[in-house]
């Protein structure tokens, strides 16, 4: 078992496009552009605790896979250091890092049976046959693959292949498990099942899990710690509850939660903040914190904004309304289903459900401003 320390790590891909003939002058500038290196990870520092379930999450192309692949040794580290436990692994080959990786499309060896897939790594390090058989049997039982040991992966369903990939990872007893979007090829129901199984697996193994996904539900439900990335940088690190309730900037606030947080220019609401919060440029609130009430009903919320219903999506347990008011368009999530399109309502908010952000989209803690209620 081991934690992972990532110190000042950067990754630059050399994007050389050498086929363009260099002697043609007109193209010279173009060539410069084409040969420019792309930096996809920018000086990242990260401390992954031993035995934690850390989820890297972020939009597509933000460098999650690159990060993982550098830890696994499949990609060179351009700059910085990666430590697994007390070993500096920068120049260690993937096989020596004692890491297991589960790939998005499983990367099962198609010509081998399930058993051969699982024991391949054991054979490589020359584990004796008797011991190998026992280990294979153990993991096959754990993941429920006993009947399929002599089947080839091509004949298995997506979920079963996923299990083979897991078995292959577990049997090595690695210090660290690495998962690159392992559930994204499964259907919704199976994905939910596997999610639970992975959480249980982590509890049983108590080994470090690093898990990449761009699915925020996966991140929220599985992680001890979420690392939210954007464009090769870490936006915020924290527990799921922290990330959800205490986002440090607009990106984090809007990445987590469906629908995402409503963020609008502060407008005349600025007048209701204390004078030393004049640098606040945006305010936001979660869709489920907004309350819709009929115009005629008497109420006493701190903020009430005259709004109009634009659309209604009934999702079953809850309904999502799109409403419009002088601050713009917002989503509201509620259990009420009876508002109809075009209906005039009041959007009611309590002050402590509001988030404030400055001009640079960074969070401003202005929550405890004492303001009197009033209709705006």
């Amino acid at each position, binding site marked *: 078992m081991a934690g992972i320390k990532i110190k000042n790590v950067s990754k630059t891909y050399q994007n050389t496009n050498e086929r363009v003939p260099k002697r043609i002058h007109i193209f010279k500038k173009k060539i410069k552009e084409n040969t420019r290196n792309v930096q996809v990870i920018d000086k990242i520092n990260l401390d992954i605790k031993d035995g934690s379930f850390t989820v890297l999450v972020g939009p597509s192309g933000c460098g999650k896979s690159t990060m993982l692949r550098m830890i696994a040794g499949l990609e060179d580290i351009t700059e910085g250091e990666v430590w697994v436990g007390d070993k500096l692994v920068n120049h260690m080959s993937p096989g020596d890092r004692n890491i297991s990786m589960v*790939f998005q499309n499983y990367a099962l*060896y198609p*010509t081998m049976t399930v058993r051969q897939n699982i024991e391949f790594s054991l054979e*490589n390090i020359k584990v004796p046959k008797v011991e190998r058989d026992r280990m294979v049997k153990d993991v096959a039982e754990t993941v429920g693959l006993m009947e399929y040991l002599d089947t080839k992966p091509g004949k298995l369903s997506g979920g079963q292949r996923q299990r083979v990939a897991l078995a292959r990872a577990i049997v090595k007893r690695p210090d660290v498990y690495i998962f690159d979007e392992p559930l994204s090829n499964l259907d919704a129901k199976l994905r939910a099942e596997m999610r639970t199984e992975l959480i249980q697996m982590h509890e049983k193994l108590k080994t470090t899990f690093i898990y990449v996904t761009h699915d925020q539900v996966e991140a929220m439900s599985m992680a001890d710690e979420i690392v939210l990335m954007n464009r090769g940088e870490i936006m915020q690190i924290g527990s799921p509850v922290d990330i959800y309730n205490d986002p440090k900037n607009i990106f984090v606030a809007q990445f987590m939660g469906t629908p995402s947080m409503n963020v609008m220019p502060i407008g005349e609401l600025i007048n209701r903040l204390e004078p030393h919060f004049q640098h606040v440029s945006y305010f936001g609130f979660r869709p489920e914190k907004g309350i819709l009430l009929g115009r005629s009903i008497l109420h006493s919320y701190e903020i009430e904004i005259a709004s109009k219903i634009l659309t209604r999506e009934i999702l079953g347990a809850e309904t999502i309304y799109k409403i419009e008011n002088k601050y713009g368009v917002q989503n509201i999530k509620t259990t009420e289903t009876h508002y109809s399109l075009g209906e005039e309502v009041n959007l009611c908010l309590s002050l402590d459900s509001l988030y404030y952000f400055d001009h640079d989209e960074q969070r401003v803690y202005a929550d405890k401003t004492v303001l009197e209620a009033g209709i705006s």
Partner: protein
Amino acid sequence: MRKHQITPYIFIAPAILVFSVFYIYPLMYMGYLSFHSWNFISVEKPFVGLDNYIRIFSDPIFYETVWNTLKYAFFTVALIVIIAIPLAIWLNQKGRIFTAAQGAVFSPHIISLVSVSMIWMWIMDVDYGLLNWIVSLFGVKSVGWLTNPNVAMYSLIFVSVWKSLGYYTLIIIAALQSIPKDLYEAAAIDKASKWRVFSKITFPMLTPTIFFISIIALINSIQVFETIDIMTGGGPINSTTTLVYYIYEEGFNNFHLGTASAAGMVLLFILMLLTILYFKVLSNRVHYQ
């Protein structure tokens, strides 16, 4: 309903027509001729029963011919498969040298077989050939590459391998490139040695392609003709006479169309047998996903 049953046949009719005229009809006609006696000119083609077959099967040269053909095919296919795989793996690397080398290896394929034969005939000439000059540098006496009955067949095999190797190598390179990269990454994480990666991943993934090229190479080499016609004329002492060359000699030099057709039927039979055998034996060992 009826209309629906006819429509598909109308769609495939042109293909069937072409196929019948150019494949089925000549084949049937060859079968027909093999039971008749004909010399190209006479109006009459008298029915002779199995005479033609009896004639070729009692001809010792015919057996030699079949043996030569099998020998030629076996060595050609074996050499191609054995050389093409490591060559493809070596050439399948990034870099200009390898791109250039791929082109070089492939280039014999686009040269006409007639030119290739002429060039090699010159290189392999006993008295003023390049090959014997090189060999002489090592103090070896002149070899009758094409004139020694014990060597000529192997010289022809060599030329045919040289000519077609690049083509088959290119097919294997394409197959190598279609093996998913993440299998190799998984293997790296699983700490597999280079040899284990080759024997447990690369080679098994290549088996369908190897199967394919070996059957194509087999069929091609059993039908070998041009190199033999140009380089050795079936000699010396029939040591390089293969089936197709035998058929050609019988039909167009000796004007025995009947026996030529009978030999043609035998060739067809051998090809069918080998193909069936091949699929039966090898398809069990070949991995298809």
